[in-house]
């Protein structure tokens, strides 16, 4: 639990550092702080987990694993931020602080043991994100993104809250334990409870960007500064799914006959909308936004086929997806800085001028497309296995069709980089970026070749 405390205190320290104009020390302090938090989380691994704070939270292995991956992803993203925020505004310390506040909310989301904490976690995370989406104060798109995100987010929170209220109304408690016991005692739960589940599904689907509640994603992802988009589409999405899974496997598993059909429909729609729309994008960034919707679809598999392996599947899939996305967004930032555009064409001929960058981006794209020997394949493999184990054969076949569609747009980048030519000068890849790229690419390959080292975590 010290992890949460450190991550909550760290931003305050950063704000003071900002106050005393110690901008140089911001990044090192943040990263050291996060590493300490990570270490403390890992130290609790396999300890007997009991609900703490009067049953509000539980820091079990599930929570530790997802805290770990979100913290690591945040560190990687923050390393990409060197020199990035400075260009946007003078108040750099605030941005680091807000990102960390958001991370604190995420830690709460992955370790909640009470619906109130779920709500509070989501709100801490979301409010921080509303601000982050709009940090380019004078940029029209950034403002639009922030406003849109805020309105949609507030709306979806309403659904979530309403759902939670209905559950409270039927069971008389916010505690996951009490709700689970109530469900076990009432195999045919009453309509109010069912309505509550549906509203919670709607609220959470908004947050993770699953169709048909995805309409905010492309605009927000496109308008927000690229680094913040990276944060939203990796860390935030992972946390959303962790919370989703935690709630459903803890409380609603016995009622799966009721909500699985609902989620099945959502999953199929999400897959098709995400993939088919991504096909038509000219902008790399927008393509990534839509592809993130389709990945939400694959991640939903774990919840549709809820079982003992679900946590493992989500963990591997989210890890694979996050690190690959970090490479993609990192490269996008560099290319965007050079050419001023985020279209596919701006990647033309990158393999000639920057073989290293092109190579890691290729690994990332192969991973996102789910090609074997990359982490993305392992993620898809575990998702498909889980779904087939529950006899969702048609779902898997639809997913296969979608995986084939996704090849088109992921390979567009590879084709642009390797097979199209353009006059371009060599991009300067800063050392920090190189470190992030190398780590991410190695992890991607490592999970792809030997997933066992990560598969035994949960």
């Amino acid at each position, binding site marked *: 639990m010290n992890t949460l405390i450190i991550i909550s205190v760290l931003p305050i320290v950063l704000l003071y550092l900002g106050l005393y104009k110690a901008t140089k020390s911001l990044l090192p302090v943040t990263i050291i702080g996060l590493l300490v938090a990570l270490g403390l989380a890992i130290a609790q691994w396999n300890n007997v987990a009991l609900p703490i704070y009067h049953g509000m939270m539980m820091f079990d292995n599930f929570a530790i694993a997802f805290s770990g991956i979100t913290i690591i992803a945040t560190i990687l993203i923050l390393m990409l931020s060197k020199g990035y925020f400075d260009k946007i505004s003078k108040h750099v310390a605030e941005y680091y602080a807000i990102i960390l506040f958001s991370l604190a909310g995420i830690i709460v989301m992955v370790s909640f043991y009470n619906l109130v904490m779920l709500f509070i976690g989501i709100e801490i995370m979301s409010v921080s994100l509303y601000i982050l989406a709009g940090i380019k104060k004078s940029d029209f798109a950034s403002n639009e993104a922030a406003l849109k995100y805020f309105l949609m987010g507030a709306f979806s929170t309403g659904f979530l809250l309403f759902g939670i209220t209905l559950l409270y109304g039927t069971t008389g408690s916010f505690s996951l334990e009490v709700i689970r016991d109530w469900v076990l005692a009432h195999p045919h739960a009453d309509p109010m409870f069912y309505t509550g589940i549906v509203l919670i599904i709607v609220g959470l689907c908004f947050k993770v960007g699953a169709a048909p509640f995805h309409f905010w994603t492309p605009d927000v992802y496109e308008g927000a500064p690229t680094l913040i988009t990276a944060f939203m589409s990796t860390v935030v999405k992972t946390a959303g799914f962790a919370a989703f899974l935690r709630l459903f496997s803890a409380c609603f598993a016995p009622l799966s006959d009721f909500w699985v059909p609902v989620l099945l429909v959502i999953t199929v729609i999400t897959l098709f909308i995400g993939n088919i729309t991504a096909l038509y994008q000219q902008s790399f960034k927008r393509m990534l936004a839509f592809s993130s919707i389709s990945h939400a679809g694959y991640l939903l598999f774990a919840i549709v086929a809820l079982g003992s392996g679900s946590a493992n599947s989500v963990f591997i899939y989210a890890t694979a997806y996050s690190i690959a996305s970090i490479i993609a967004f990192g490269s996008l930032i560099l290319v965007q800085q050079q050419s001023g555009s985020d279209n596919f064409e701006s990647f033309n001929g990158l393999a000639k001028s920057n073989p290293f960058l092109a190579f890691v981006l290729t690994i990332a794209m192969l991973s996102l497309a789910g*090609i*074997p*020997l990359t982490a993305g394949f392992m993620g898809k493999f575990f998702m498909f*296995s889980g779904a087939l184990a529950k006899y969702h054969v048609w779902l898997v076949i639809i997913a296969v069709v979608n995986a*084939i569609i996704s*090849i088109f747009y992921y390979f567009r980048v590879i*084709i642009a980089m390797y097979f199209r030519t353009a006059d371009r000068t060599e991009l300067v890849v800063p050392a920090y970026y190189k470190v992030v790229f190398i780590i991410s690419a190695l992890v991607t390959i490592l999970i792809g070749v030997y997933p*066992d080292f990560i598969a*035994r975590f949960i």
Partner: protein
Amino acid sequence: MTVSILIFLPVVAAVIVALLKNGIAKHAALFFSVAELVIAGLFLSKFIPDATTQFAIDVPWIPKFGIYFSAGIDGISMVMVLLTTLLVPLIVLSTYQHKYNNEGAFYGLILFMQAGLLVVFTALDGFLFYVGWEAALIPIYFICALWGGENRIRITIKFFIYTFAGSLFMLVGIIYLYLQSPGKTYDIHEFYRIGLDAKHQSLVFWAFFLAFAIKMPLFPFHTWQPDTYTEAPTAGTMLLSGIMLKMGIYGVIRWLIPNAPLGFVHWQALVMILAVIGIIYASLIAFNQKDGKRLVAYSSIAHVGLIAAGIFAWTEVGVQGAMIQMLNHGINVVGMFFIWDIISRRLNTRDISQLGGIAKVAPKFSIAFLIIVLGTVGLPLTNGFVGEFLLLNGVFEYSAYHYFNIALAAVAGLTIIFGAVYMLRMYKNVMQGETNELTATFTDISGSEKLTLCIICMLIIAIGIYPHPILHISEAAVNNLIQTIKIKQY
């Protein structure tokens, strides 16, 4: 000594070669591929040609999900390993006259692909098989797309998506079998014991069949093939036609029929007919080809159709014929594409109508070309004859319905006549007749070209005269497999 040496040497070699500079990389690649061939030879010398799996390796990979790194060599795999390790050095040698930019990457990808192919041919674990299957696809995609012809972007993505689509369905099939297996493992021997009912076996059959039919390619899944063969750099075409399509045929023998025998029986007649249609269809198109490389591509579809028909007949003779014909087809087609590579490199054209009379200016070349043509059309005492004879024999023995087998064998037999017609006509138009302005500049083969063609021609004749050693390698394994997976004739 386990098969892991065979699998991991090319991986290490690929990394080393990829880091080397232009000029050294090709020699290093040749060195490593020959070393691999020597190791394969060592395996062969210690190999006991009975039905057992030898040199096996079995270590946990993802034990939680029943996935093991489990591979081994039996008679069937041995032939495939020989095919791969023999052809890769030949292919590398055949590229010696080319100047590729970024040579290290080019040869590194070839070696990496070899590792993937060897995994496919030796894997005894469904998951490992799938990973090898895709690990062979990625390098060939990049080889074709980076060093290919003008339309390469569109055509290679089509090729990639086609094959990737097929293999994803296979993945679903493999996972399905895993979930049905009593011990929850991906072990192929467990898969064989599952015993699903006919209806579910049909589903499994189609899941695997799509992947294999696209890879071979079997009519009507062949549409990616001629374009890709034409656009790919010659080394890529050789890898695709010489080795990669055998992945599909091998898959049918090892994974498709034994895993879904009842499903296979149900669809056997259909796939036999598809194979035979493919033979005729491809032969007819080959008649009208002006581009030599394209003609060879279509002739390859026809030959593969016959191999497929021989396997789908599922008789000992037919499968044995397929085994040796895979090796022969690999050698012949590599030779054939090399011939066209030499012609197009010297004369900058592959248009048959512009050529003629090369025999007069290049006698050595014309002899090599003739031997390869004869091997391809299956003249007695060349390697093609042995394979085609056994294959047709196998098709003839397949007796599902009265007279059906005779009709099939008769139609399939046309491939020999058709093949002779278009191949010999091609030879005549290219090599004989009057030497024109263009072909007068043709210089005879020398150096690495001579060496490559010499090896190929010697193999063609040697196997044609005395095929027994190769047939003997796979005989026991094939017989055993067919005895175990006895298909009831309805």
